[in-house]
């Protein structure tokens, strides 16, 4: 925590708060989809629930950003009240660890599209393994479970990876991120 500036921490938690509300807003959307398609319904839009990890890591570019932001978002969701309870904090931690693992694999050096999409996929894989044991997916037939996993991975890559990058880049254009790693590195690249 020592090499983090306070500014980065507060901005990260503000982002987490915003997305905690977004996450909660998407739960009923997921429930409607589940009503139509069965448990796979959540997986179509599962990527939305990893998005803050990707955005925070992409903007701040420090080890721990993906993990901490997702954990904070999950904690705020619990405090606001949701239908899953404190288990959600652990779920958030595991999703955050998944995204974090992708950035760790690149040694926190590359923040290109591929890494961000990989982070979405890893978050999907981690959350799926966790869900397999806690939500009882194994009670479902194995082809169905495989379809769920693949859908979730694609959703993670597209919704959290691509949409997360698009949102952060749009934010960078407004100028509010001028003192953050994302814009600083872009500036350095343009100068070189």
């Amino acid at each position, binding site marked *: 925590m020592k090499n983090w500036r306070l500014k980065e921490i*507060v901005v990260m938690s503000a982002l987490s708060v915003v997305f905690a509300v977004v996450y909660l807003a998407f739960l009923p959307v997921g429930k409607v989809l589940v009503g139509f398609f069965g448990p796979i319904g959540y997986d179509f839009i599962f990527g939305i629930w990893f998005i803050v990890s990707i955005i925070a890591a992409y903007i701040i570019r420090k080890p721990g950003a993906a993990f901490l932001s997702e954990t904070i978002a999950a904690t705020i969701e619990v405090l606001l009240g949701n239908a899953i309870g404190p288990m959600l904090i652990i779920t958030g931690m595991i999703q955050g660890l998944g995204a974090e693992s992708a950035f760790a694999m690149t040694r926190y050096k590359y923040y290109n599209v591929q890494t961000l999409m990989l982070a979405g996929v890893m978050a999907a894989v981690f959350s799926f393994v966790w869900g397999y044991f806690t939500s009882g997916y194994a*009670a479902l037939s194995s082809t169905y479970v495989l379809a769920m996993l693949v859908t979730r991975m694609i959703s993670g890559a597209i919704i959290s990876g691509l949409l997360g990058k698009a949102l952060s880049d749009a934010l960078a254009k407004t100028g509010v991120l001028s003192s953050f790693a994302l814009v600083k590195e872009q500036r350095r690249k343009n100068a070189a």
Partner: protein
Amino acid sequence: MCLHNVNPSVKALTILGLVFVLAFLFDPITPLLFIIWTLLLTMLFGSFRKKYYFLYFFTFFIFAAGMLWSTIAFADTPKNPADQVSWAGWEVPKEDLFVAISLSLRILAFATLSLLFMFTTNMVHFILSLIQQLKLPPKLAYGILAGYRFLPLMKTEFQQIRAAHRIRGMNQATSLKEKMKQYKRFVIPLLAGAIRKAERTAIAMESKGFTGDRNRTYYHNLYVTKKDWLFPIIMFTALGVFITLSIIFDYFAWYNGQL
């Protein structure tokens, strides 16, 4: 004993421990008894508006009912397909029904535990307790507290942006498609505003001498006293008793490759 006075960290860790044990149980009786026990405890030793509690409980209940339905409908082939029970006009394998009921009851048991925490814990005390008992770095914790305070501000900001758009001639969205477009227009200004506000808050905190150092004083000092240990002891004893009861009545099932 009043649930509100239990140290928040002790309360949170106890609940996590209970959730962990419950996650390995696959019989319907233990979670059912545990739900009743937690409900009673929350009602007797917590002071809050009971109406809100049941409102929340109801949403959990719907969720659990949905889980019951989907687990049966999309179930794996059972080991004993011939062993069927008739339930609500359906022929369902007995094994599937048992697993489905215990999974849904487990969700409800988790729900009652989390409601117990939510309704009897003050958020600020919880974060302070995380710093003081669980050694969370103060820099991170106060950062989170500052972020959390933005929540009501965000709502005002949202209304302001909407009003600003409307005053410049963007009409009120009526169809679902227009609403989606409208939200797309809101996202960037809302996030940019949040980031600006967060940055200003951080600068204000630092200019008033906040360093994030662990060696600091607190307005609220939280301690773990002997009384706080009563909560985990009572909860785990109750769980033990329910497990024993379910073993005696021959309902008990431990995790045994069901999933």
